[in-house]
């Protein structure tokens, strides 16, 4: 909805504003969100190295012990250091959604550009195929994938990417159609530039701000859904640290009066998702302007 309007002014934007310029335009809330995302990504890449203790070493005599010196967030139900598990868990919690977003954006953009370029029968086939794919909510598809391939992060990530693809394709198809109608495309065609050449060199780059805004919003969805699947026991498998897994395994602590381990993982998810949502909304507003 409104996808065409989103890109209406895409080509009158002053060129060369660059990544930093774009970020600055999102205002203080956008910048703060970008900061949170950078920190979370850093933890995803180096969390296991930064973790002060082993994230998987259990010590039942320390079960549910609260924060003490050197252990800022205390211990979980199996006596593992909570902060270390959070840091190490950032890897799957962040890189899983990243994989989903890259897969869904690539597939969605490809389908959208092909549909907009070929129009006619190809567009009709792609569009109705995507309409049917809409019948599968992401989590349901991921549960099905787990039933078929067994529980695991890979199957869940691929299932979510498939479920998200129609959303991406629907937004980008409108933008690609609009871009396809621009005079510069006709000019390039007259010059004999090949269709893939025009699409890859000109059409897709012109849609990039919209693609990035969509990917940012989608990262938040993917993070929530993947964590939910790990929470259900169908994604990342314990004892591997993951924020969704940590909530599931420390749920008993909530009723026994030790909420910190589960809450800490929940807060990590919420903070990162808020950051992606806020930045994504700002980026969409920028595209809209």
């Amino acid at each position: 909805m409104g996808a065409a309007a989103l890109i209406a002014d895409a080509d009158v934007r002053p060129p060369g504003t660059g990544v930093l310029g774009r970020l600055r335009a999102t205002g203080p809330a956008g910048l703060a969100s970008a900061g949170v995302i950078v920190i979370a990504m850093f933890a995803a890449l180096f969390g296991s190295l930064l973790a002060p203790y082993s994230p998987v070493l259990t010590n039942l005599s320390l079960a549910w012990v609260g924060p003490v010196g050197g252990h800022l967030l205390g211990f979980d139900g199996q006596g593992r250091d909570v902060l270390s598990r959070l840091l190490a868990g950032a890897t799957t919690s962040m890189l899983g959604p990243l994989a989903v977003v890259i897969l869904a954006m690539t597939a969605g953009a490809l389908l959208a550009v092909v549909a907009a370029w070929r129009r006619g029968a190809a567009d009709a086939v792609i569009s109705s195929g995507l309409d049917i794919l809409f019948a599968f909510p992401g989590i349901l598809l991921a549960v099905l994938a787990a039933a078929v391939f067994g529980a695991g992060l890979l199957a869940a990530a691929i299932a979510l990417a498939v479920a998200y693809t129609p959303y991406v394709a629907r937004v980008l198809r409108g933008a690609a159609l609009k871009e396809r109608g621009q005079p510069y495309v006709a000019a390039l065609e007259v010059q004999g530039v090949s269709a893939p050449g025009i699409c890859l060199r000109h059409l897709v780059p012109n849609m990039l701000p919209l693609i990035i805004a969509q990917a940012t919003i989608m990262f938040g969805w993917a993070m929530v859904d993947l964590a939910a699947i790990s929470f259900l026991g169908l994604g990342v498998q314990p004892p591997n640290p993951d924020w969704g897994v940590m909530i599931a395994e420390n749920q008993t602590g909530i009723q026994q009066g030790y909420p910190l381990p589960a809450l800490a993982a929940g807060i990590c998810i919420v903070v990162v998702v808020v950051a992606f949502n806020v930045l994504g909304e700002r980026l969409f507003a920028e595209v809209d302007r």
Partner: protein
Amino acid sequence: MLGRFLARRLAMLLASLLVASFVIFAALYAAPGNPVAALSGGRSLPAASLAVLEQRYHLNDPFFVQYWYWLSGALHGNLGISITLRENVSTLIASRIWTTAGLVAYASVLIVIFGIGLGVLSGLRRGLVDTGTLLLTAISAAIPGFVAAIVLILVFAVDLGWFPALGNGTGFVGNLQHLTLPAVALAISSLAIVARVTRAAVRTESGREHVQTAVSRGIPARLLIRRHVLRNAAIPITTITGITIASLIALDAVIETAFSLNGLGAYLVQAAESKDLAVVQGISLVLVTAFVVVNLIVDLLYAVLDPRVTLGSRAQ
């Protein structure tokens, strides 16, 4: 016009369901593992009982014949037998469907009343109410259902003791009490999204020229809001409310698991873990059907609210 639109949407719904049923069946048909071993629980069987099993489950028939047996069975309410519970899948679904339907309905009511209410209030009133709502909804929109679940259990069940933490409860009042926290957990992020979209829609419509003209003509505020602002804002509000309510059908598996509720979603997850494929197929089919039907209802409402939709052009 509405008739033709309805016919086209119904045809699309049936096509979606047919493809979805095929995907569900094919995926689990292709699942690794020997179906006979699953049915016998790993024991080795005499050739005679093996033959009985193969005949009963049509295991030796070609794929499409098996699909046809399954689909026609499903249309007659026969979804096969659960291998872990040794019961009819339809019976098992029927005994759990009301918990799920009740939970989704309860959450939907919360979304409609509080989501739209909050959005309209914050859209019409600038200042503190608006800023507060914006901040609150930005955070709540990012709270996953299962995180909301643990916080709600911690605050309202463990600390305050106002609501039970887990389980289904008995009787209407007991059910309602047991479903309150799950419904809030299920609704919270969708509620925030509905509130934000509603606010934006009300803002946009209030700023339109015809509304400004009506203001200058001295039309009373109540009438103005109802007839000019809300009537036009109803279109995006209906769309987003419908989409989020449909999405609850899938999210409910997470909430039921978090609150140990005995509904379809939690059962689907257990069945997926234990590879009880007939149950996974049956519940997936029911959930996909519900999802598609809710989407159809939203489209119809949309068409009633905005007659332009029935005139074709779905290119936008």
